[in-house]
């Protein structure tokens, strides 16, 4: 608590660095080093604090500067060279530089507010409430923001009372399927057996989604508090967090947080003097998408191949080592403490009738403002993509939800209010929260092939429909995208897809055909263009596109000649260049060079089917 008060009323200037994985990928650590160097030169004694992701990743690196007695100023896209100027203006000239200024936290005359930023204004942050605000390495920061009050409350009450709160809040599993969390806990609590297990599923396997990573990196204690409350409610004394090895920073944050919990008696024996014992082990996944499936995940914890098994028996009756087990997603657990603290009525009033609460999404792809967002259930896709995401640079084509198990929704679905049911009715799924925006430069057939390639390589191989079927689906899509399909292939695609959905063993197989079936349903024209005209309308499928130089526009500046790795482009300076198609590997280097380095700027085009 003292540490938080010291932070709120800092005596020294404080530099707050957004140092989650995205921040670091954008160069936050280099900026940090430069900031330290600059402050040293200015002879200013400042402190640094790292925080997790606050959401608008496209603004990373985000750096906040908090001078005692002055507002906390947030700056975006702070490269090392920019940080020097910003710091000099603030500390030397006592100014507030306007360039790259996002806003201030709190109310300050004449200064725009951080939370009024168009990407943030419409969001409702419950699970992400601490992300980017507190130091994720400090349990004191978490405690100061009402951390572990819910656990204290839970331990002072009977498990049934806690279960009732969770049940009546209406929260549903945020991993994708949307099963009511309270019911799930109830089944496990009622199952006979003296040894039970509580597992947190942090195997965020959906490629294109990073909500769980950000939450753990930004607020690990929130997830852990939810985990302990869940364990107490179902009567488990042992817990596991199954997390992807690809998330080293998130693992580090969890390890650190668990250590702090041990030191303060929040985990281990006799937690907070309640007599309840619980300890937790981190299990690192080893790169298998199917391990996001509950039964496969448990197999993996047991040290086996991660292969799903048929249900029943359900994990609540017979899970890890045959004992009753509950598995919850990171986001579900991250919400639990706030529900217990604020009450089920408060939570169930947020969202829609069927689906209460908020949902985090990773808003990515061809949208202007990319990042992690949290919105109340029931918000329309249009509001998310155009108000929060700021729209696209080009024309909207579709939005892909639910990852490899989901589908693509076309423009006509932009006004549906998102919850589990509406998305399923539209032919997609909520999934764990990946929202990938596609524009007219994205080929939906190529995207379907991409997903089928993913699922067929991630198929565990146990059941035939998935092992052989997804391979066949991929082969059909491969034929279509290389111009070797005939119209009959579309029927095969539909028929095969439908039968895999009905017959595969686990969720991975049953949903694997969705990307192909939904794109075929809403974008049949594009499939037909590939098959009948050998044309990829978005000019993506490499076998069907060609790189061309428009002779009238080419100034002969040789930028493309220099970058072509295969020497496919020839032509003397000042004369239009030529691309030898037989040598071209379609790597786009020339196209990029023409757009950014060349004199003409748009002389190289990627076309499909326009030239015979």
């Amino acid at each position: 608590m003292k540490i938080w008060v010291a932070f709120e009323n800092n005596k020294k200037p404080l530099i707050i660095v957004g140092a989650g994985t995205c921040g670091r990928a954008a160069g936050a650590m280099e900026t940090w080093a430069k900031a330290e160097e600059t402050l040293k030169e200015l002879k200013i004694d400042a402190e640094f604090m790292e925080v997790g992701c606050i959401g608008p990743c496209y603004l990373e690196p985000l750096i906040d500067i908090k001078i005692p007695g002055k507002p906390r100023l947030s700056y975006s896209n702070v490269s090392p060279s920019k940080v020097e100027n910003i710091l000099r203006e603030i500390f030397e000239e006592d100014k507030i530089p306007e360039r790259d200024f996002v806003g201030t936290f709190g109310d300050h005359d004449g200064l725009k507010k951080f939370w009024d930023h168009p990407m943030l204004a419409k969001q409702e942050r419950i699970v992400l409430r601490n992300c980017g605000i507190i130091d994720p390495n400090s349990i004191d920061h978490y405690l100061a923001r009402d951390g572990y009050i819910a656990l204290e409350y839970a331990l002072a009450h009977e498990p049934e009372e806690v279960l009732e709160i969770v049940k009546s809040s209406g929260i549903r599993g945020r991993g994708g399927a949307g099963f009511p969390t309270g019911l799930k806990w109830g089944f496990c609590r009622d199952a006979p057996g003296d040894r039970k297990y509580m597992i947190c599923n942090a195997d965020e396997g959906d490629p294109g989604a990073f909500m769980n990573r950000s939450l753990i990196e930004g607020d690990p204690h929130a997830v852990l508090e939810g985990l302990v409350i869940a364990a107490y409610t179902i009567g488990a004394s042992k817990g596991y967090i199954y997390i992807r090895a690809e998330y080293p920073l998130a693992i580090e944050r969890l390890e650190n947080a668990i250590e702090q919990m041990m030191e303060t008696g929040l985990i281990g024996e006799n937690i907070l003097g309640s007599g309840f014992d619980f300890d937790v082990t981190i299990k690192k996944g080893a790169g298998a998408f199917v391990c996001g499936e509950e039964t496969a995940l448990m197999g993996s914890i047991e040290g086996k191949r991660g292969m799903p098994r048929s249900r029943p028996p359900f994990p609540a009756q017979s899970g890890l080592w045959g004992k009753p087990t509950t598995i919850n997603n990171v986001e579900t657990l991250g919400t639990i403490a706030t529900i217990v603290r604020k009450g089920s009525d408060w939570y169930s009033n947020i969202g829609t009738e069927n689906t209460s609460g908020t949902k985090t999404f990773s808003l990515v792809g061809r949208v202007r403002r990319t990042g992690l967002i949290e919105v109340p259930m029931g918000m329309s896709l249009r509001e998310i993509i155009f108000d929060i995401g700021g729209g696209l640079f080009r024309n909207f084509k579709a939005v892909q939800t639910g990852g490899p198990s989901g589908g693509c929704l076309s423009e006509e679905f932009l006004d549906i209010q998102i919850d589990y049911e509406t998305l399923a009715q539209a032919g997609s799924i909520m999934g764990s929260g990946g929202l990938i925006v596609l524009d007219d430069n994205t080929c939906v057939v190529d995207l379907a092939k991409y997903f089928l390639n993913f699922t067929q390589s991630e198929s565990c191989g146990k059941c035939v429909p998935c092992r052989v079927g997804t391979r066949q689906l991929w082969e059909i899509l491969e034929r279509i995208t290389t111009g070797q399909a005939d119209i009959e292939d579309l029927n095969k695609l539909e028929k095969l897809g439908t039968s895999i959905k009905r017959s595969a063993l686990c969720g991975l197989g049953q949903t694997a055909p969705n990307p192909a079936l939904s794109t075929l349903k809403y974008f049949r024209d594009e499939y037909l263009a590939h098959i009948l005209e050998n044309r990829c309308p978005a000019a993506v499928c490499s076998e069907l596109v060609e790189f061309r130089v428009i002779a009238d526009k080419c100034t002969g500046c040789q930028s493309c000649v220099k970058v072509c790795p295969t020497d496919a482009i020839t032509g003397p300076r000042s004369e239009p260049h030529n691309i030898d198609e037989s040598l071209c590997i379609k790597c786009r280097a020339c196209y990029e060079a023409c757009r950014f380095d060349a004199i003409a700027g748009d002389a190289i085009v990627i076309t499909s089917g326009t030239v015979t």
Partner: protein
Amino acid sequence: MTGTAVTLDLDGFTGIRSDLIPILQHAQDSLGYITEEAVRQISQKIRITENEIYGVATFYAQFRFEPPGEHHIQVCMGTACHVKGGQQLSVSLEYQLDAKMGETTLDGKYDLEQVACLGCCALAPVVKIDETIHSQLTVLKLRKVFDEDEES
């Protein structure tokens, strides 16, 4: 990632079956890859057959059975990276380094791997070289990263 130990130190493990994946991860961390000798050692420690160990190890994408390159390149194959041109990064990288995904360059300097998702989707497309993630790449930006590396 590129450990140099020859034999495996397994003292920290009790040898129960559920230790298998953590032990394999430990082996790869300290040896750089899963060696035949390591599998023999693990087999004795956990008391399961080498066959079974290979069965588990080959199931998971993380484990490799060939020595890694000096630098480890992971090309992100996530959906966001894919729609933002990740495929071209692979094509161009394979050509530039004269090695396919899953292979190591002849001089042993780089090994190429495609990974499902690095979780940096908002800054797609990304490529991770050793511990550094390079974001919002284009073919030319990526090439520059390598050219700078060659010079240094």
